[in-house]
């Protein structure tokens, strides 16, 4: 493997190892408040937020498993699993797309 790619992969693995650092920030990002948080902020829940916020039930909501969300260790495990699943899916999609697009195009090989 090419040296650059190998080194970038090493950095990427280090990032994954460090990913629970992202759990330490406990606040909510601006404009991403839950209905309860909005109730506290503006005193009411806008009708659209009340009706649309439950539109989709993501299987790994907030990058974790609900069963593991009580302890930092459990949250970290869920966060690790999420990072790995997300990275493998993102990477996998492009390996497949890349193979499909470059398979019959020898003119692109340089």
């Amino acid at each position, binding site marked *: 493997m*090419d*040296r*650059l*790619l190998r*080194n*970038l992969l090493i950095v*990427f693995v280090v*990032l*994954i190892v460090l*990913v629970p*650092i*992202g*759990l*330490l*920030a*406990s*606040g*909510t*990002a*601006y*404009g*991403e408040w839950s209905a309860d948080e*909005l109730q506290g902020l*503006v005193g*009411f829940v*806008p*009708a*659209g937020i009340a009706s*649309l*916020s439950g*539109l*989709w*039930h*993501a*299987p*790994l*909501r*907030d*990058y974790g498993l609900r069963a593991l969300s009580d302890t930092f260790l459990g949250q970290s495990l869920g*966060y690790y699993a*999420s*990072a790995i*699943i*997300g*990275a*493998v*899916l*993102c*990477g*996998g999609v*492009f*390996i497949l*797309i*890349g*193979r499909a*697009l*470059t398979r019959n195009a020898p003119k*692109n*090989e*340089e």
Partner: protein
Amino acid sequence: MHIPDGYLGPITYVAMYIVMIPIWLYAGTWLRKNLKSKQVPYLALAAAFSFVIMMFNVPIPGGSTGHAVGSALVAIILGPWVAVVTTSVALLIQCLLFGDGGITAFGANCFNMAVVIPFVAFYGYTLISRKTEITSRRRVLAAGIGGWLGLTVAAGFAGFEMGTQPILEHTADGVPLYMPYGLGITVPAMLFSHAFFFGILEAIITALAFGYIARTDPTIIFNYKRAGEKKGGVRTTSPA
């Protein structure tokens, strides 16, 4: 910057999907035409990197949090159209599997993070770096400023999209149906937090990674070869 479901009304979220459809189609065509097999592992890594870097939430004064996006770096290294596709895929997986960013708001989130960041960052970088050597300090600085500018401008767009909701969508009595805060609050809030905190993080990541890649293997960098050929001059004539 991942706008959830319920914060944008149908006028805005439908409009943002309509804006995104031709952009996605063109980006797909661009990729089909320009992708080289050598770049495929870098694309895979770019999408995975975007996904993971967005998990590094950083707290800021005032109790809010945020993160870098990584799409400025992808735009500068692999080209802005590649960043459109890799960031959109990362955002789609975040939305569907992890509930980060709404399904209705997916078009808007892709516009802000997968279009505005890459293009603003790429053109900012190109303008500042001019015709300097690929390994020059000016280019590292240009990459950092591009990253900062991309994230900050995108935050302004997200603030604008959210802040127009009380004007566009409300009950007969004027009660907001979606995002309750108006432009005067959302735009400064988004601009401030990204200009002073998350944008700086994006700048550092972009500059460091660019500097390293430019010194290690500049041939992977978007447009690098074209610049080299221009400099070399007359070996363009090879009748096919």
